[in-house]
């Protein structure tokens, strides 16, 4: 249902502390904008069209659709909102994005131009893998996967089908051996198909396991 905008109860500006380890500055900026859009005045061009545009651009940057020039355009728009914004919510969000852009410029560049997320947060830039040395053939991950992307069985090393995996992360917490992990584009050697636990080192030596191509 629609609600009337209450201009009186909008949040005030805050200062931004350095981001904790494991927090993606791009994703963090996106969250600030999404939050602001839920409570901002939404009336003026800065607030309505501006924040919508910023959200669209950052969403693209975090999902692999970033384009050359996006960072410059983002700075234009965010700088515009920070200078012209009407409500505290949009000003706070814009300042947050600017803070992230300034302080974590390398991360933004990596997201936009190299499709990498150092914090392994942005799903488009990560893979979920099963570390063959750790896997004990426990099938907890198979049961946890809602997409049915993991193949394997009792006593077999589980293999994640990257094409079917949605990066939901459900499997990450269930493995008692910590064998399921996130990975960037540089992945360790993995079996192509489930093989018996303990056979991975032999198979790798015999050349059965090829190093996968970097997913681009």
């Amino acid at each position: 249902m629609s609600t009337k905008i209450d201009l009186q109860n909008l949040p005030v500006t805050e200062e931004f502390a350095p981001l904790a380890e494991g927090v993606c500055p791009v994703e963090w900026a996106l969250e600030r904008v999404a939050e602001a859009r839920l409570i901002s005045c939404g009336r003026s061009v800065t607030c309505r069209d501006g924040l919508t545009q910023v959200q669209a651009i950052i969403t693209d940057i975090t999902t692999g659709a970033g384009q050359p020039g996006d960072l410059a355009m983002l700075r234009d728009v965010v700088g515009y909102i920070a200078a012209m914004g009407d409500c505290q919510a949009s000003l706070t969000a814009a300042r947050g994005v600017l803070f992230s852009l300034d302080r974590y410029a390398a991360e933004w560049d990596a997201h936009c131009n190299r499709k990498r997320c150092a914090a392994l947060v942005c799903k488009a830039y990560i893979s979920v893998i099963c570390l063959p040395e750790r896997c004990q053939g426990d099938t907890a991950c198979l049961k946890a996967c809602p997409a049915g992307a993991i193949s394997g069985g009792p006593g077999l090393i589980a293999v994640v089908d990257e094409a079917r995996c949605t990066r939901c992360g459900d499997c990450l917490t269930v493995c008692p051996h910590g064998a399921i992990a996130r990975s960037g584009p540089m992945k360790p050697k993995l079996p192509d198909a489930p093989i018996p636990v303990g056979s991975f080192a032999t198979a790798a030596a015999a050349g059965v396991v090829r190093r996968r191509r970097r997913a681009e």
Partner: protein
Amino acid sequence: MNRATLTVDGRTISANPGQSVLNAALDAGIYIPHLCSHPDLPPQANCKLCVVEVAGQDGVVCSCELPATDGLQVVTQSSALLQRRKVALELMLAGHPKDCVSCKRYMNCELQAMIQYLGTVHSRMRVTTRKTDDLNVDNPIVVREMERCIQCGRCVRACDDLRGVGILGFNRRGDEVYVGTAGDVPLGEAGCRFCSACVAVCPTGALQDQFGIFRDDLPWEEAIVPCSAECPAHADIPAYLRLIQQGRHSEAIAVIREKVPFPHVLGYVCNHRCESGCKRTALNSPVSIRNLKRYAAERDTEHVWRGKGFHKERSGKRVAVVGGGPAGLTAAFYLNKLGHDVTVYEKQNVAGGYMALGIPEFRAPTAVVQAEVGYIVESGVRVRYGQNVESAAALKAEHEAVLVAVGTPVGKKLRLPGADFRQVYTAVDFLRASRLGQTLDLGQTCCVIGGGNVAFDVAGTLLRMGVRATVVCLEKGEAMLADREEIESACSEGAVLFDGHSNEGIEGTPEQVTGLRVHEVSEFHFDRATGALVETAVPDSTRVIACDSIVFAAGQATGLTEGFGLELNRFGYPVDPQSGKSGHRTSLDGVFCAGDVITGTSFVINAIESGRQAASLIDRYLGGDGQIDEVLVERERQPKIGKVDGFHLQARQELSLRPAAERVCDFQPINVNFNADQSVCEASRCLQCDLRKDIRKSRIWSEYAVK
């Protein structure tokens, strides 16, 4: 308070106390880009396009919210400002469709003009869409294409600040903010008055008038008040409906009298083209304008219009008006006011023409007609009765100008065997005789031939005379030419209808009609070349309707002959040799026409307007300026109309028809007019389309001297 003096881009301008820099600059002819600002609305600083720099201050500020104070030095053009404006416009365009050419506001769109001014294109930004665009778009009067909305908030302010309706606001749904009604209910349910102020101020195509609601062949200012646009005399209908609603009946009549000198008669007989234009029809049904006019006329006891309006000095010019019907008397009325010495030559012994002698008493009471004719005579028009003018040329010799407004006083008879029998009459003669109290030999039963309104007027009159009436016409059912209510009224009073029947002949002897021989037709048309009837008869359907008399209601003619001195066409209508058609001018210099003698038998309001035009034309011929427009009542438009719950549902008030058995016994009007409550109720249904005329149009960049 003194005016403030400030400089804008080095130009010194002055501002009214309290005026914004934006408005002061615009008033001085200096353009500052703006979209959310509107000359009639308070500022809101939504669009951020009117940014300026102020000497001694950092950053930029919206000039719509910047008070124009003494000594202020403002810069409106710089590369930084241009950059700001371009980003703002790019952001707006990111969520705006790119189909300019398929938008109905194409080339009439402030956003489009802004694109042109700033040289911005849809390109760099991401295309954004909204899920809330499709909310609440189904509406009969205001088209809401909200994907075109740039959220300037003008409509919200117009609805609230301008109209006091206040049903539009900024709503939120999830992370989207949009313009809508509380709870997203349809406009009608929200209490909308459908004044369309929101449409008038919308700078884009987001809010549009429903296609087809206004005529597109008229100037915009005229078309947006469709009732007045449709009225041949262009009466200021919303103004008088407002006065009726306030109970100011005499002033309401004065407003009507600015355009027509017969408001009361029209309250009875007008064909109310205004109602067919009424915008309210799209909501439920049109305002009952004609009946309200009659209501007000009945209560006009103060005659506030008397003595008002223009009265020019006497010109010493003499004008003869031939025919004292609505066209002739209207022209005479205005020509007299214009200072000319007017004499009306009326063939009959009463004036009023068709209003007095061609329409039955129960549709237009004699007292009403004679009262309004009387006001014209009182104003100084001389009427000479019983004057049969045989030659316009002869009359022209004694007058500086002559107006021929004889109408179509001669009834036509079809060429049927027996059409010359003694008891065969024309509707014109019959109705005239009935109004004059003359008796005709009608017997017990009379057949009326014809299917128009006149035929049913005749039937109703016959029934009131105690004569059984049978109406025979070619058209069947829906195709009949008369108004539905006229047919139903006459039939409920006891008229027998033979629709879809063709006549073969009149039975009887030249001394006594005994019947009408008819047969049924399955289809018919009139030959294009000859005008002859081509029909397909139903086999073995011939029958004789027994009757003692016949009345032809089969059209009328001018009765003019070559001896009248004017060039006539083959139907007997004077022609203007310049155009070759009938018109206000004739083949004789200084002799003019007005009314039915130009158009053929038509409605009273058309004759009145024709009379007005002729008066204006004749005045110019006589050396005047032809100006006949006048204001008898100063207008007070109250723009704050406020919200009314259920306004869209308010039903049209109908007159109560007297029972058929009762009304057929007398010649009193067939229906009873509104009571006071009904009149207020009905008048308040008006959408007041004219309020929109007071909303100024926002000027675009090209209309400013400095841009």
